[in-house]
């Protein structure tokens, strides 16, 4: 949260990118909102496992401040996360300029494959991508296409996918399914497309085959998760 000397200052500063549902409130009101368990519990190791409850608390606290909060849209989607393997090592070996050029090419290819397989880019951070697809098989195929297309550049990526209901708020995807996909991607090996059992079950019969990668605990997510590597 950013602080301003008055609402006029905040509105002037945020004039060009403020979303309709951004909030400007007196500091004393924010203090009430921040007592919600959402914020306290973000210090907890397993806070993601209670993400839905936190969002509910947050929305209730905002509502108490007289702020209306539109209900989120929930849709079934397959989330795809990608990440370059050993990007720090590549950067050190190549130098800033060459790395920047390589990263630009990487971004072009990833975006091209997302578009080709009718996905939607949600966000990027460093050398990571987050995209959603309305078809699990196309999401898996997009991941394999990215790996294949990036190979000649000497870039290996790890990819993780999960299918579940996501929230669309302000055009952005969020929700527990997003966290699960992100966690799965961190467990993928170089050049691997690692998926949850949910993904596997939704694309049975598609011609994509699976190799069992065992059960795993995903940080902040309750339960054990059966994961599979896909073979196109």
């Amino acid at each position, binding site marked *: 949260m950013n602080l301003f000397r008055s609402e006029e200052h905040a509105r002037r500063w945020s004039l060009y990118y403020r979303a309709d549902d951004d909030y400007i409130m007196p*500091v004393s009101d924010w203090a009430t909102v921040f007592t919600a368990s959402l914020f306290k519990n973000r210090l907890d190791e397993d806070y993601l496992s209670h993400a839905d409850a936190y969002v509910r608390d947050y929305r209730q606290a905002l509502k108490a401040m007289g702020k209306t909060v539109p209900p989120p849209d929930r849709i079934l989607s397959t989330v795809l996360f990608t990440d370059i393997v050993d990007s720090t090592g590549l950067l050190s070996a190549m130098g800033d300029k060459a790395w920047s050029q390589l990263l630009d090419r990487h971004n072009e290819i990833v975006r091209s494959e997302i578009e080709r397989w009718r996905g939607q880019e949600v966000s990027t951070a460093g050398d990571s991508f987050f995209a959603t697809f309305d078809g699990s098989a196309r999401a898996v195929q997009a991941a394999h296409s990215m790996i294949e297309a990036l190979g000649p550049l000497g870039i290996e990526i790890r990819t993780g996918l999960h299918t579940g209901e996501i929230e669309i708020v302000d055009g952005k995807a969020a929700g527990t399914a997003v966290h699960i996909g992100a966690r799965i991607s961190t467990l993928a090996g170089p050049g691997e497309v690692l998926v949850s059992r949910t993904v596997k079950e939704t694309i049975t019969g598609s011609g994509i085959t699976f190799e069992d990668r065992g059960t795993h605990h995903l940080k902040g997510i309750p339960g054990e998760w059966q994961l599979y590597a896909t073979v196109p």
Partner: protein
Amino acid sequence: MRWLFPDREITVETRCLDCGEPIRVRTRNDEIIEVNPESAVGYQPSPFARSRTGSAAFN
């Protein structure tokens, strides 16, 4: 921050992002002791989901 320092008074001294003039907030546990100037506001690019997506996806 209040939960990181229970039962201790915390003072936040910062500057307005718009004009650069100082802002001071003193708090203890869940109570705001002082806001100077009193007109000070917080701006939160909401919804929470936006930041939640970022923190979970890339941490």
